[in-house]
Structure formats: C-alpha cells, structure tokens
C-alpha cells in the first residue's frame, strides 16, 4: 500500500507491505536506524517514537497505520548539529552506556517534560516505566532529566521512594 508520512519534517511517499511495522519502515526503508528494536513486543521501549504528537512503541504500530501522519525520531532531536538540552544532559551525566535504550529514553523523557515540565524523581520513574535500560541502572538517566529540567543539585542523594 502507498503511504504518505512526514518524518522529522521531511515528507515521504512510499510503498510498504501491509504487515511491515512502523519500526522496520523507519529503520529499513528510510534508513533511520537511531530507533532500536529490543523486544519487538512492547516491553522494552527501545523503539519509542513520536507519532502524531504522542509516544508509541513503533514495533506495535503498522507502517500503514501511520499513513497521513507525522513521526518524530531521535534523528530529529539535535538541531543543526547542536544537541538538544536533553541529549546534552544525558551526555554530561553519563546516562548513555551502550546506547541501545537511549533513543527511546529521550523520546519518553521529552513526552514527560511536555506534560510535566518540572518532574520529581517519582514522576520521572513513572514516565520512563516503559523504557528498559540494561546498563546504567537508571540513576544517571534520572539525574540527566532532573538536570535538563532544572531540578538537579550537585551531590544530592536520590531518594527512591514510590508510595504504594
């Protein structure tokens, strides 16, 4: 089926197989390999992208469902070679080790900041609950997001509380 999508501001018109996921369309047909496939089943969040202004697991969206829609991926995050505030904070706080989760983390963090501009540690944990990281232990990621939103103080103990 022929679809039209706008990805990171560029309009594409492509023929895709009906059973192709949005994730594979982005990676294999458009060459945007920043978005990763971890589980392919909605568990890990590595494939998170923006679709019509909301984060989705692109492994669970068909490319044909995106027809007429707007997609944003990690490739659109830096502007003119300058890292976004979030990317820069991830860099400074060593929130990236292997980097496999990072694209998805940045997408989810952006959505979180969009509806909660000054998130608490708990709000960050909740906002990222669909994004797994097997390297960092999350602490650096949380610090980076706190920093990017003006909530980080040097040497502040992170207290992991989550009311039940």
């Amino acid at each position: 089926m022929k679809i039209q999508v706008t990805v990171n501001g560029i309009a594409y018109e492509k023929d895709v197989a009906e059973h192709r996921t949005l994730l594979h369309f982005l990676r294999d047909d458009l060459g945007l390999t920043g978005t990763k496939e971890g589980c392919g089943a909605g568990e890990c969040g590595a494939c998170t992208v923006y679709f019509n202004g909301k984060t989705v697991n692109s492994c669970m969206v068909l490319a044909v469902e995106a027809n007429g829609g707007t997609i944003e991926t990690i490739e659109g995050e830096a502007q003119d070679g300058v890292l976004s505030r979030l990317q820069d904070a991830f860099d400074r706080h060593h929130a990236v080790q292997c980097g496999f989760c990072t694209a998805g983390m940045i997408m989810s963090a952006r959505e979180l900041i969009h509806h909660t501009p000054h998130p608490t540690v708990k709000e960050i944990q909740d906002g990222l609950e669909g994004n797994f990281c097997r390297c960092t232990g999350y602490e650096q990621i949380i610090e980076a997001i706190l920093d990017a939103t003006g909530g980080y103080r040097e040497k502040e103990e992170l207290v992991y509380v989550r009311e039940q």
Partner: protein
Amino acid sequence: MIHQFSYMAPTELDDLLALLDTTKGGFKLLAGGTDLLVNIRNGLLKPDLVIDVKRIAGAGAITYDVEKGLQLGWATTINDIISSTEIAKHYPLLQACACDLASYQVRNRATVVGNIVNASPCSDMAPALLCLDASILVATATTRKTIPIQKFFTGVKQTVLQPREMVVGITIPSHTKDSKGVYRKLKRIQGHDLGIVGVAVAMVEGRLRIAVSSAAPTPVITDDLPLDVSAPDALYAVERIINPISDIRCTKEYRRFMVSEFTKRLIQEVRA
C-alpha cells in the same frame, strides 16, 4: 512480521460493519494493536485481513452527561481516560485502573475496548467496569444490542461476542457516578508489568462491591455487601468468586493470600 495480511481502514462505521458481514477468510479488528500485533508476530494469530477501526470519526470519543452517564468509543485509549477531567471527577476508579495498565507509551495506543474484548483474566480495566455496572454495546451490520459486563466474559480469553460482531462502545451508567473506588495491583516490579492479582473495591450507592482480576478464569465481582461488612464476611464473599491457579508469576496460595490482604486494606481505604 513474517505473516502477511491485507489491511483496510474504513472511514464510516456502516462500511466497517458491512465489511465484517461480507468478508471471507479470517479477519481481525485492529484498534491499539498492543495485543494483536504482538500475537501476529508470535505466530499465534494469522488473519488474512486486518481491519483498522480508528479511522472513523468519533472512534475515540468520551462523552459525559449527568443523566446518561459516560460513553466511551471503541477506540478510546487508556491515556484518553487518564487525561479526561470528567472521568477524574465522576469515575475515579476507572482512572485508577487505567493508571496501572502497562507503560505510558502503551497507554497511548491501548484501548479500553481492546482490554476487555481480549478478555485476559488479568485485564486492568475489567475490575473498574464491573464495579461501575458498565454495559458493552455490540453491533453487526443489521443489529445492535447491549450486554452487561457481568455477562460479557465467559472464560480465559473468551467472551460472548460472535465472530461478526463488533464492540462499538461502552456505557457507564449515571447511577454509579461519583462512587468512591480504589484499585491495587500486585506486580513483580513497580513499573510496567502484568498483574499477579488486582483488587478493586468500590462504594456504590451505599454498598460495597469487590472486583478481582488475575485470580479466576475471568475478572470477577462479588455481590453487593453492606458498607459495614465485617472483614471475615468480605473475605468469604471474595473467596467464593475466585479460583486462582499457579503459574510462572506465582503460586495460587500466594494469589489467595494477596487478594485477601488487598481486600482488607482497600475496604479500610474506601471507608476512610
């Protein structure tokens, strides 16, 4: 995805229902896709045709009316429920259950109707819908009917729906509005996970009702109990409706234990 299928996305409900009526071969309706696409990928489902139900105007509607209650569309997402101020105000239990479902980005896609037609014993939305006397609106090309949610589930992943029927909405009546309700879900981790057990307790028109997920072949609900029901009587009522199994997540004894624990705690909370 290895399995190939064709795809259609009608833009009128009548066209969609007509398509259901006439299509030959196996088909599946696609709303959020958070179960369907995973099952196709795993090879558990092999539809010839996937019909997208989201391109129809009003598919994701939420309408509230003091007299008629709450009306949800067939593609209303879980995050639509969470961000609705009217639901927050009048049906807080619905929102509490929604907040515990999967992860943020899954909730952006997953739909309330999908969560119940899937009929998993661990459905997160079912406990709220059971407590709030929801009805399921079912349509074919030529018929319309309403099924109370108490009669909707028939077994693990099974419902009363016939192959060419489609759920076209959920109504939550006005007599359950402004009911206090709480939901607690036990998970292996605090983040995104399926429930080990889930318990909802609601106070509806001065009576208590308790709904439980992941502890029987379907989500279940007790009869109405007096507001001042004693703990042993409430636990007895719950014991009678559950029938947990042991699986990879935990044993049936643990499920039983946690259902009673949550029941006791939530009754206190809802009365407070």
